[in-house]
């Protein structure tokens, strides 16, 4: 088993908004703080397409450009609000021809995301 280098992301309001728009997710809870609060959230929060993308980035940052991502499977936990820090940790182990990485992304409220990524390494 190999431990991956940790990845810490400052999920500033700018980060939450720019990633929501880059993933073409225009739900107001990802860019409009008043709307998010009115719906019972503390602040705007990360959207799921970004969480999935960050899980993939965390693994390819470690695996390198020649790795092929085959599968990303995530289970969502607590929301990651603007102003928080999201820290990814993971361990990799071989699985047949592939490598499977168990990933956890934690923010101040707890586990924001847990999941696995399957990659083919060169």
């Amino acid at each position: 088993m190999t431990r991956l280098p940790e990845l810490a992301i400052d999920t500033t309001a700018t980060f939450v908004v720019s990633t929501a728009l880059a993933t073409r997710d225009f739900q107001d809870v990802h860019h409009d703080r008043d709307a998010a609060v009115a719906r019972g959230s503390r602040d705007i929060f990360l959207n799921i397409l970004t969480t999935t993308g960050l899980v993939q980035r965390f693994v390819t940052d470690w695996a390198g450009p020649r790795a092929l991502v085959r599968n990303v499977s995530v289970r969502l936990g607590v929301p990651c609000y603007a102003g928080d820090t999201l820290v990814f940790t993971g361990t990799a182990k071989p699985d047949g021809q592939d490598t499977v990485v168990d990933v956890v992304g934690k923010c101040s409220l707890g586990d924001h995301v847990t999941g696995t990524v399957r990659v083919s390494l060169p």
Partner: protein
Amino acid sequence: MTGSIEAEAARLRQLGESRPRPARDPVNEPMINNWTEALGDRNPVYPELAPPAMVQVWTMYGLNGVRDADDPLGAMTKVLDDAGFTSVVATNCEQTYHRYLKPGERLAVTTRLSDVVGPKRTALGEGWFVTTLSTWYVGDEPVAEMMFRVLKFAPPEPTGSVIRPLVNQDTEFFWAGTAERELRIQRCPDCRALRHPPGPFCPRCGSATPDYVVSPGRGEVFSYVVHHHPPVPGKRLPIVIALVELEEGVRMLGELLDVSPDDVRIGQPVTVDWSRVDSDLTLPVWRAVP
């Protein structure tokens, strides 16, 4: 209601895959660059190839998008909205990529309903798990698949409402006391034994004519729990619930305020204070004696 939700789910499942819905734009470098810039992804294979996790981005409905009539997630959402399960949260997403995409390729997506499971009690409220399966195609070639699960739930009552005590003829004197900020302990007028919680008969002599005394509300923590879950309306968890042994010898439950869960200790001296909920209800609470 459960039956009609299940019937509608079965009908939508029968319909199978929705018609292919084309992406607005072909896979393209500017959108890839926006994505890698926003997410901070410096993998040098982009933008000559598209990040696999972008597959869903290409077919997002966009700012003014309207769901297709045969989109099963849209149809199921409407059924559950109408049944009062109006809130939504995504719980699972699993994407499988058969190959990487290149700029210029044109995607289309189809979606079918996999299953609808419920009603389930969850931390967020009662709800239904709705699972859809999507497939992305380039022409006739499937290039990626996704399992997507959301919880459609009925939001709990607005915060601020509280769980109210049951007031009956045995406990009425106690709650009349808290309204006047008096901590009343039931006493048997015959044998003078004190007792709490209140009841109709003296457990020592059987007398059925209870009286009470007013306590100054001093005591110490006899035991306690730290309540993390389930949610309590109007409370931010965790909270400390302390069983306090009063100087008079009876034990009484209440929330211990201003002491963090890590700092509570058995034997800690406390005194009563009052938490006014509304004009009908005041609760006794404990505060640490400095």
